[in-house]
């Protein structure tokens, strides 16, 4: 009985993994097997990264992508296991670390076994062993948001910065970029508040944004929400308080509602990243490194601002609706 069960299981597994690859391609050239490890596998952002990685693999030809994230989103231990489990079974690794500290030692373990590692999306505290770091320049993204805000408000007015969460590095850089650029380039814009954290979910952002907007509703002209859940909650708060259009909203990262908001005067700018380029450039550069080429230490994948005016341009449409793997 139990032997039968094991046999069944074995058969089921074999059925799922029939593809037969060996280390070399049909013409005898080496096939590079690359592990690409996102922070999670369910978010749309990562599906676009996956798309970009597969694009690069297709272009190069002799590259096979093994796409695998932690079983749960935000599962650090899970991601550490995935990283370690690939030791010996891939030729290179592309990783978006869930945590800048906890992944340092697993990455060094992998590199010590002779597998080159390229980091993307979020930084690692110790960069001494990695090939390169491919990511959005978040400070620059924040600066773009500040310039867009200055443009909408014609250089004067009162704005609120709604921060994301304590200890999140990427959003902290966006916040700094926003504040410093406003201060330098738009001296007549007054910052009403920049010390409130909206939390990680649209729900917590909604209640925080409501409190803030209600407190300052007679003075505030613009609000910057530094990431997608944050902006989703803020947009809802503006709607609830009947402030859409009156208070200008600049968001970071799109979702369907924010994109729709560009058309009905409730969203006035969305700072965009390029996840497809992130996946694409990561794979390209890792392969280049493995073939002995020099690779830059830090590669910027670009930041863009979508506005009601430019949103129909082809490039903006691509970034607002990035292609996803498996579509």
């Amino acid at each position, binding site marked *: *009985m*139990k032997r039968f*069960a*094991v046999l069944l*299981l*074995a058969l*089921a*597994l*074999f059925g*799922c*993994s029939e*593809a*037969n*690859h*060996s*280390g070399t391609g049909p013409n005898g050239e080496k096939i590079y*097997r690359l592990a690409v490890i996102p922070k999670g*596998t369910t978010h749309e952002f990562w599906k676009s990264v996956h798309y970009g990685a597969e694009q690069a693999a297709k272009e190069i030809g002799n590259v096979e992508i*093994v*796409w*695998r*994230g932690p*079983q*749960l989103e*935000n*599962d*650090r*231990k899970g991601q*550490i*296991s*995935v990283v*370690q*489990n*690939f*030791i*010996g*079974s891939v030729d290179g690794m592309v990783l978006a670390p869930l*945590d800048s*500290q*906890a992944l*340092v*030692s697993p990455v060094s*373990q992998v590199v*010590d076994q002779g597998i080159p590692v390229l980091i993307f999306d979020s930084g690692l505290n110790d960069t001494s062993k990695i090939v390169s770091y491919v990511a959005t320049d978040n400070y620059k993204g924040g600066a773009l948001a500040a310039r867009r805000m200055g443009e909408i408000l014609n250089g004067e007015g009162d704005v609120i910065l709604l921060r994301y*969460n*304590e*200890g999140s590095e990427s959003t902290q850089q966006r916040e700094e970029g926003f504040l410093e650029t406003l201060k330098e380039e738009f001296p007549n814009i007054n910052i009403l508040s920049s010390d409130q954290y909206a939390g990680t979910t649209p729900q917590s952002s909604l209640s925080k944004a409501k409190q803030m907007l209600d407190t300052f509703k007679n003075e505030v002209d613009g609000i910057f929400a530094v990431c997608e859940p944050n902006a989703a909650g803020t947009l809802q708060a503006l709607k609830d308080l009947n402030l859409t259009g009156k208070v200008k909203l600049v968001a970071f990262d799109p979702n369907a509602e924010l994109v729709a908001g560009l058309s009905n005067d409730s969203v006035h700018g969305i700072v965009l990243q390029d996840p497809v380029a992130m996946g694409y450039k990561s794979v390209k550069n890792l392969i280049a490194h493995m073939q002995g080429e020099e690779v830059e230490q830090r590669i910027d994948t670009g930041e863009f601002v979508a506005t009601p005016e430019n949103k129909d341009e082809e490039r903006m449409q691509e970034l607002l609706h990035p292609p996803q793997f498996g579509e």
Partner: protein
Amino acid sequence: MSSKETKPSPSESTTEPGALRRFFRRIDFSKGLAQFGVLVLIMLFFSVAEWLVTGRTSFSTSFNIIMMASQASTIAIAALGMTIIIIAGGIDLSVGTAIALCGTVCAWFLREDYGAAVAIPLTLLTGVVCGAVNGMLISFLRVVPFIITLGTMSLFLGIGKLLSGSTTVRPDESSQVPHWLSNFATTSADTTILGLPPGVWTLLAIAVLTYLFLRYSVFSRYIFALGSNESTARLCGINIPLTKIALYALAGFFVGLAGMYQFSELSEGSPTDGVGLELKVIAAVVIGGGSLNGGRGTVQGTLIGSYLIFVIDNGCTKIGLPNHLTDITLGVIIITAVAIDQWRQRRLERS
């Protein structure tokens, strides 16, 4: 108490059936032998599958086998404690968040410069207190453990967030975390002893102690009695509330140790890192032949169960199976294990 000793099956005294059949009758799930067989089969399967699919043989290397052991040790330590609870007919759903709380306590005291000599004992103490709280609530409120620990699961998560200020507690790795602790469960060459990381040796030592405890101590008789039939145990004069508090506190010690392992692995403490861990811990015990009806469970089985979970994860990664198939595979194995267990129970009752 039925399962501590293998019941001699009636057929053994007769000349028929043949030796092979007798051998299979003897393979008792409560002894862990059958699970070991399944583990070896699954490992063989992954070795072959990896070679067929990718043309590589990295699964069956000693490096990988030791690495899986060190990955499994956090779950395994906690699962040993859970085995004691499950033998006593209880359950502890709070184990995941309690581990994370212990890890956070460890990180917090290190960050505040108290040193490992203070931080580690307090980590273990936190685990014991968490367990004792569970035991007391279960005994005094007379509510089933499932509900109580569902409550304390959230309670420990909240306390962890309070302590950490809702963020990740990061002691400075070079100056505040002792070298032995940050390398406790990793396979890096300079800290291993006879090829195994100290964390795996510690796990094995604790497993031996737990085995001896379950086999020879008087207290373990009470635990088996409690799990087999609580009212009979009461009639036999066992102090049920005290036994429950003591056994949950004992399991809490294992949770504290698991918290230390977790900290060593992540080199930081976050109260949310344990969410979902309880399911893996319980799965390890169940795969290992522990019965949620109480009265049954072994150290060997639990160790194999914990290892199996990581073997499946590792093997699926090596083959390059997508995430959803790993989840499905693990689910199938858990259900298979429980189904076999039920089948065996019925067979025992018939004979």
